[in-house]
């Protein structure tokens, strides 16, 4: 899981333009924001609900605000940030769509990554064993998983279309390989983890957010 997190970090690190304002939601230990601040001179704010992780992030030198994302982000004004990051967090929220609405409001671009439940490695395990799949991207048992809202690539794209959200870019990764541009429809079952950059039409200037990778 840790190695995969870093792959995620690498892509997000590339996507974010130097000097921008970044909101990292569910920041964990704050490594990504610390690196972005050090190497890309971004101004960052992290949000995390677990006090132990908040302490880690403070020790990492990140400005971190302890808060449960399911309570919304009313303290942040519209378009306060260039990017909001929801890294492997959405599936853990009580109200994932409310959180997406908030990130779309407070930032121009939302960078969201999540495990794809339609990944063949997940579905295959479920069918073969008849039990909830435990995989590198979903490393929990049914009773202790924080992932309470699992969904798939098409679930996400359906929501984006219904909501009128523009998908600026999409990336996929599987079995620990680096993220690469999304390849539809193949990635519906080939992608283990997905990452999207989304925005609302008219939310600031369209800018190239394609990875230089």
């Amino acid at each position, binding site marked *: 899981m840790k190695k995969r997190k870093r792959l995620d970090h690498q892509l997000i690190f590339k996507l974010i333009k130097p000097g921008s304002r970044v909101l990292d939601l569910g920041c964990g230990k704050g490594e990504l924001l610390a690196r972005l601040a050090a190497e890309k001179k971004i101004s960052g704010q992290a949000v995390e609900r677990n006090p132990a992780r908040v302490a880690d992030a*403070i020790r*990492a030198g990140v*400005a*971190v605000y302890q808060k449960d994302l399911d309570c919304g982000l009313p*303290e942040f004004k519209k378009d306060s940030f260039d990017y909001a990051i929801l890294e492997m967090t959405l599936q853990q929220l009580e109200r994932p769509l409310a959180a997406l609405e908030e990130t779309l409001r407070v930032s121009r671009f939302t960078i969201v990554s999540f495990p794809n439940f339609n990944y063949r490695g997940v579905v295959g395990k479920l069918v073969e064993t008849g039990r909830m799949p435990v995989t590198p991207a979903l490393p929990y048992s049914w009773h202790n998983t924080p992932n309470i809202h699992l969904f798939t690539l098409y679930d996400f794209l359906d929501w984006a279309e219904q909501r009128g959200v523009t998908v600026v870019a999409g990336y996929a990764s599987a079995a620990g390989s680096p993220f690469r541009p999304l390849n539809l429809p193949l990635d519906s079952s080939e992608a283990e983890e997905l990452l999207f950059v989304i925005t609302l039409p008219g939310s600031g200037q369209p800018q190239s957010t394609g990875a230089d990778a």
Partner: protein
Amino acid sequence: MTDPLNVCLEKRAPHDLPDAPRSVGWISPKRVVLADQANPLPLDCGIELAPVTVEYETYGRLSPAKDNAVFVLHALSGDAHAAGWDRDWARDNRPWRQERPGWWDEMIGPGKAFDTDSFYLVCANILGSCYGTTGPWSPNPENEGRPYGLDFPVVTVEDWIRLQVRLQDYLGIEQLLAVAGGSLGGQQALAWAINYPDRIRSAIILAASARLGAQGLAFNAVGRQAIFNDPCFNRGNYYNSEAPAGGLELARMLGHITYLSADSMEGKFGRRYQNGKRPCYRLEDEFMVESYLSHQGRSFVNRFDANSYLYLSRAMDYYDAASNNGGDLEAACAAIRADLLLISYTSDWLYPPESTRAVAEAVLAAGHPVSYIEIPSTYGHDAFLLEAEKTAPLINSFLRRGAQG
């Protein structure tokens, strides 16, 4: 008696003795006159006060660039003696200082949160207190040098900061690396950040908020009434007679209840009797919690001035970070330039976590980054002193990051 009822002592690690590697060792308090007739200190109440003396202590060394100074801000009953052992306790008639080091000794010293190998710490006694800085006990030049008593002007948190700014200038420090404090000290740190944004680079605010709630105001009011109603109070003119010890003791007992939590009291004392398992059928000092509070009250009157308690608790009442912005905390926080670290403790009901969070929310709404954490603790408001182990690494990392930035 070795103070068996003191929850603070039980929780605290053994003191670092003066020769311990992590102690700042023997310390001498310093005094400086920062306002005189030619340059009096303007107060919020409209009075210009002079002379004004400030007692302060310093630990560590000021760097040649003068960029490593941290002002530590004490709470209601605190003093300038934040760390180490007072060499001059006998000269200044402060025998209680033989028993223990400064009030934040766990946090200040070589290798501690406020690492004196890296940072230069300054702690000054606040205006109106009774530990060397001018207060109601000081000679009133307009009354033939008799103590001010209740003729001392009503002071505010903002007045305290105005005086600390003079100390900053006296020490020749253009910008402080940080200001830091808990409780009333945290409110001073917030006042620094809002009123003097360019004079500090960061502020560390523990167990404090933008204003005391109505419940807190109510407790302070009862504390003051206890002092007013003491037969020895004599409208504050007691310096040549018996002091209103009973009233001050009662005020301190009441204050102590607000510093603890229901859980910590239950855990420490429960319903245990002072003498064995059976009631003695008497009205005084029957339960352990009673004896504890009495002990706290009695030891307090030996080291504190009742008039100072009146003035400092009133300043605590008055402080409202948003008062200059029509109650709009976000507008007040728009002035802030410093990096902020806000820490609350889950069982604190004097300055509850929601009230500290409200400051963080206002700062974020003003478009400024903030660090805010709720540390799980059962110790109530006192957690900011007692949870040193959990708090220290956060403060240390935050300071080091500020020093690099």
